[in-house]
């Protein structure tokens, strides 16, 4: 905090902007403009500072533009810099005046002093005035050839600025080609780094309407270029290193030697003090080894320690960023971190955003060996002064209880929470006890005796109240005063503001009535009457429905409202494994922090250097993927009342397993056995290791056995790139340009037609054969898909396919267009084979 005196001395933005001050400045500047008196530069400096200080706090000083430009005829570099700053800020709003500055900036671009050349060039390119671009090309061209590296670095970024003002001018001047040659030959590391970032940005934007850009972009990922950068990575500063590492992530290594070479080159980057460098390196390691199970696991072991050091050595903000990534890794591979649980204990002075992350991590890594310690620690937090954290801790204990087999001790702890007599602790605990009972009905006896002692008057939170009411209804036969407690609550119907609680009251009254009719009859009557008069639509409807069902047949009503239930085996995960994989692919980006794939929070043009997302984003799975979450949440919602049978739950899990099955092969689809390993990993990582899911595995394994021999004798002649990328713009352009090289009709097997009720499944299926969907549409019986694929050896050789499937005739019409027409027949065969396998078990 600055001393109060200081704050008075400076105008704060809330003070009215003085018009008179600006006029004052204007006249003073005018006086100085022509003066050559000694010391005039000092007075100019003072005035310039004043102008810039007004500019900073938001006062409009654009009216002194002319005077500023007049005053800038000076050799004083400090003055020049201030003037450049000012001009850069206001030029866009005053294009006419900007013309005034062009002259002196162009002159400065030829100054003897490289410093001035550089600064002038930077200001010139920062004017952002479209009708001045013609003045930029010359100075930029000579800037790129300047013998001073400072000027060259600025010129390179200048090219990018020019591209954003006028792309055509930039391309016509052939600047990208110049940058490319600078990138590969310049001696200065920063010039090279700037070339790389400029080219990446330009080509990514050009890709949609230029094939050349597409090729150039690909060429950045070629082996020589990647090694050119990686071999000299230490010459670059830490920020440029991050840039290079981010590029290396996208490189597809040719073989395992290639992978180990890269990892050896980058090994010492893990010891860097800059967390951004370490995380970028970690990402390279993780992506490279995805198809090598053992090595992948070794990578986890290797990166653990450096990441933990970064967590404890930085500011809380930096720790948070690193911890978010650790969180992702912990959730993916909890067993690797199980012995490190103490690192995730909360420290009392940590900000709550850090504590919350740590609690989630503790929940994830709890297993048989460490549960006791972790739960003991979490119980300490439950008495925390920070109520939000105390609540989270209790929830964490509950989650651990739900995922463990031996919950004996945990249930005791939870029941102890109820004895703490803090309202929020009681509230959280009640919700948990309810979930526990749904999973472990055998505990009902112990829980009920404690819960029965809680006075409903002390519970205000709707969620907790609903939980208590649910238990009263469900276990009415074991809780002697259940009907009376319910009756009491029902009598206060009018005072109950939460519709959720009123809904639960209705259901609980029904359940209680079936178990103890005479005692509940009156209360149920009141509840139904009150419910049918309720303003809330759902409450009204439910009351009316209960009333009618009862009227129809009491036994039917009982079967509907209070059937005997099976225990819930696994609570539905709120995030599909598909989404988790997407987030993992976007490691070291904001996706990890927000725990969402990038398409959920960025518009397409800003997705930045993470083309992974673009690649998948092209396939219209977006609506489906986000829809994935919704049913899961609905599950939870429905669960409150009617429990799903185990079978239904497992169906749900089966889907998630196929979900991971389709992402796995995208790294290596030629090798079925590695595919199976992938499956095994993702299966255990999502902690879906229940007997039921292993049965599913066997199923899939059966497929592996039966199809593998069938495929080996006739290996497809054409190898396709599993990670091919083509954006819709380029696709459209190609589709228009290329002639149809092949038209074919083939039949689709009946299982395939049946599976087509969900068209997404075909897209996934084809993707597992390295054929990617770019657009799809249509309705039964006619479905239309556009696919593309790329030759593995030559990324520039694309195959585009239009596929129309008629589900009533079980026929598919295929039109193929190819860059290399001679191979289109080979491709068509691959395509047909893939299609014919669709729907096969």
């Amino acid at each position, binding site marked *: 905090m*600055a*001393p109060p005196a*200081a704050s008075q001395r*400076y105008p*704060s*933005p809330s003070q009215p902007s003085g018009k008179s001050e600006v006029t004052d400045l204007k006249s003073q500047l005018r006086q100085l403009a022509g003066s050559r008196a000694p010391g005039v530069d000092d007075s100019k400096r003072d005035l310039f500072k004043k102008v*810039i200080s007004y500019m*900073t*706090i938001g006062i409009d000083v654009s009216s002194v533009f002319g005077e500023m430009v007049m005053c800038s005829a000076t050799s004083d570099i*400090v003055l020049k*810099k201030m003037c450049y*700053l000012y001009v850069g800020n206001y030029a866009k709003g005053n294009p006419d005046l900007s013309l005034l500055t062009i002259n002196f900036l162009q002159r400065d671009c030829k100054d003897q002093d490289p410093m001035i050349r550089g600064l002038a060039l*930077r200001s010139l390119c920062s004017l952002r005035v479209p009708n001045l671009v013609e003045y930029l090309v010359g100075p930029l061209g000579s800037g790129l050839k300047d013998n001073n590296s400072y000027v060259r*670095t600025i010129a390179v*970024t200048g090219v*990018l600025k020019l591209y954003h003002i006028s792309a055509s001018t930039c391309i016509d001047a052939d600047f990208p080609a110049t940058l490319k040659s600078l990138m590969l030959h310049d001696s200065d590391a*920063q010039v090279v780094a*700037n070339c790389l970032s400029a080219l990446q940005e330009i080509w990514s934007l050009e890709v949609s309407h230029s094939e050349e850009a597409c090729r150039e972009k690909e060429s950045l990922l070629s082996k020589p270029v990647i090694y050119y950068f990686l071999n000299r990575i230490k010459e670059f*500063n*830490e*920020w440029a290193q*991050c840039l290079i590492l981010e590029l290396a992530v996208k490189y597809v290594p040719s073989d395992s030697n290639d992978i180990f070479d890269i990892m050896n080159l980058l090994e010492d980057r893990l010891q*860097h*003090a*800059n967390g*951004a460098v370490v*995380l*970028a390196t970690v990402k390279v390691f993780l992506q490279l080894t995805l198809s090598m199970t053992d090595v992948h696991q070794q990578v986890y072991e290797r990166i653990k320690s*450096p990441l*933990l*050091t970064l967590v404890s050595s*930085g*500011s*809380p*903000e*930096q*720790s*948070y*960023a690193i911890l978010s990534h650790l969180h992702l890794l912990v959730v993916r591979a909890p067993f690797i971190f199980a*012995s*490190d649980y*103490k690192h995730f*204990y909360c420290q*009392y*002075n940590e*900000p*709550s*955003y850090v504590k919350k992350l740590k609690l989630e991590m503790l929940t994830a890594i709890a297993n048989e060996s460490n549960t006791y310690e972790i739960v003991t620690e979490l119980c300490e937090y439950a*008495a925390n002064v920070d*109520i939000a954290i105390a609540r989270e801790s209790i929830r964490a204990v509950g989650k651990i209880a739900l995922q463990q087999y031996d919950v004996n001790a945990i249930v005791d702890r939870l029941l102890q929470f109820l004895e703490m007599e803090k309202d929020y602790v009681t509230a959280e605990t009640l919700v948990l006890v309810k979930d526990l009972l749904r999973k472990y009905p055998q505990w009902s006896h112990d829980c009920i005796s404690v819960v029965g002692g809680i006075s409903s008057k002390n519970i205000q939170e709707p969620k907790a109240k609903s939980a208590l009411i649910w238990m009263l209804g469900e276990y009415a036969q074991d809780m002697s005063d259940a009907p009376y407690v319910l009756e009491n609550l029902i009598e206060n119907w009018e005072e109950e503001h939460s519709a959720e609680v009123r809904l639960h009251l209705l259901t609980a009254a029904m359940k209680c009535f079936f178990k103890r009719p005479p005692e509940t009859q009156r209360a149920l009557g009141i509840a139904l009457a009150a419910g049918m008069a309720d303003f809330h639509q759902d409450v009204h409807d439910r009351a009316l429905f209960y009333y009618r069902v009862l009227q129809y047949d009491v036994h039917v009503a009982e079967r509907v409202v209070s059937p005997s239930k099976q225990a819930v085996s696994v609570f539905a995960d709120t995030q599909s494994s598909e989404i988790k994989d997407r987030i993992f692919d976007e490691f*070291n*980006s*904001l996706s990890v*922090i927000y725990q969402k794939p990038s398409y959920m*929070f*960025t*518009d397409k043009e*800003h997705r930045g*250097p993470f083309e992974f*997302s673009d690649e998948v984003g092209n396939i219209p799975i977006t609506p489906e993927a986000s829809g994935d979450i919704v049913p899961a949440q609905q599950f939870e919602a429905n669960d409150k009342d009617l429990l799903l049978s185990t079978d239904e739950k497992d169906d749900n899990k089966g889907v998630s397993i196929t979900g991971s099955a389709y992402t796995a092969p995208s790294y290596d689809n030629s090798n079925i056995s590695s595919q199976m390993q992938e499956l095994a990993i993702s299966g255990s990582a999502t902690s879906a290791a229940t007997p039921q899911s292993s049965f599913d595995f066997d199923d899939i394994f059966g497929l592996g056995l039966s199809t593998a021999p069938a495929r080996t004798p006739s290996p497809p002649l054409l190898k396709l790139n599993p990670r091919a990328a083509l954006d819709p713009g380029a696709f459209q352009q190609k589709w228009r340009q290329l002639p149809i090289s092949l038209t074919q009709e083939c039949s689709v097997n009946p299982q395939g037609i049946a599976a087509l009720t969900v068209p997404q499944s075909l897209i996934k299926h084809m993707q597992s054969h390295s054929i990617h969907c770019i657009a799809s549409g249509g309705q039964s019986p006619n479905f239309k898909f556009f696919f593309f694929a790329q030759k593995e050896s030559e990324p520039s050789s694309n195959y585009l396919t239009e596929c129309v499937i008629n589900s009533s005739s079980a026929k598919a019409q295929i039109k193929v267009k190819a860059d290399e027409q001679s191979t289109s027949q080979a491709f068509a065969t691959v395509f047909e084979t893939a299609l014919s396998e669709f729907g096969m078990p």
Partner: protein
Amino acid sequence: MMISQFFVLSQRGDNIVFRDYRAEVPKGSTETFFRKVKFWKEDANAEAPPIFNVDGVNYFHVKVVGLYFVATTRVNVSPSLVLELLQRIARVIKDYLGVLNEDSFRKNFVLVYELLDEVIDFGYVQTTSTEVLKSYVFNEPIVIAPARLQPIDPAAIFTQGAKRMPGTAVTKSVVANDPSGRRREEIFVDIIEKISVTFSSSGYILTSEIDGTIQMKSYLSGNPEIRIALNEDLNIGRGGRSVYDYRSSSGSGVILDDCNFHESVRLDSFDSDRTLSLVPPDGEFPVMNYRMTQEFKPPFHVNTLIEEAGRLKAEVIIKIRAEFPSDIIANTITVQMPLPNFTSRASFELEPGAAGQKSDFKETNKMLEWSLKKASVESFPRSFMVSNITKEAGPVSMTFTIPMYNVSKLQVKYLQIAKKSSSYNPYRWVRYVTQANSYVARI
């Protein structure tokens, strides 16, 4: 990378500097940011996380000396990179201004703009090296005399900021000339250790960790090479064993779990003789960060006893025992203990003859505070009594600073400056300090 804007806001939300690099984020981002941070949730306790997204714009911020350093972007960037960058910008500015606060910022904003223009161009980071920047930056800093700072006690320089201490000791600019015209040749090496210990209610240690940094600030002319020798019995990593395996004896030297190094550090002979060599760049930077969970002797032992003395009354006895050599003095010690919400009154009894001690019950947040100006081994144990509480109090937490003492026993054996002239003998300062990070005793 690609940052759209960078700005610094005061605690009141005023713009101190504002730079727009790419004109992609709509106007008013500073207000949007400040409102969001100030009113993160209805729950006043929850702090805004360092990264959040409002209407497609990602806001990153770090808090340094009470100021918000903020970057915005629309691109899905690496979060670590941006946060690291913000922290680094703060350090570069501090290197130039000597003292980093709102006042020095406002006095030098033109210089700060000059720096910002060279650090980031069109959203891409160019350099954050104070050394490299020196040749591009021409404004001279207007240095705020340290005397104009609020009077601070000697340890306060180590207690600002939450985790990493900012500028350790030196508050002079790397570029400003001394009034005398000559620069003093000197180099500072600080070994700063933050310790976290959790004692169980029965007084044994549940977890303990040391997070250490060797921090350097060099004012040497001509960039000579420097060699730093650490303990010869220093070991890094504990093989495949769990890092929390306490069975390893503490007699076998200093064992670090892990460490990382500044990019200027060369480790050619580190494996053989534990020396680091480097050409220190200008400005302040961490040479090495390390982490240690090896068992160590905590400087203070905390013991708390609660006894219910009647239905509405309880007695708390807090005993603290210092366990470091008697020539070492700890200062700015505070002991805190949250009391139950319904506590109405607390009374204290300090040991007779306790000078320079203060105890207080903060009614608003029901917090009991006991502070000691300084303490050496003789002035312990201390205890005091509080009445009128029952269960659900605690835990007791403690903050302190112990200059010239470090618990890990990591040492700088020598600091060698390679320079030919024999008469060249700059000042070398090697200093140690230990600080509490999370020092907690449960009840």
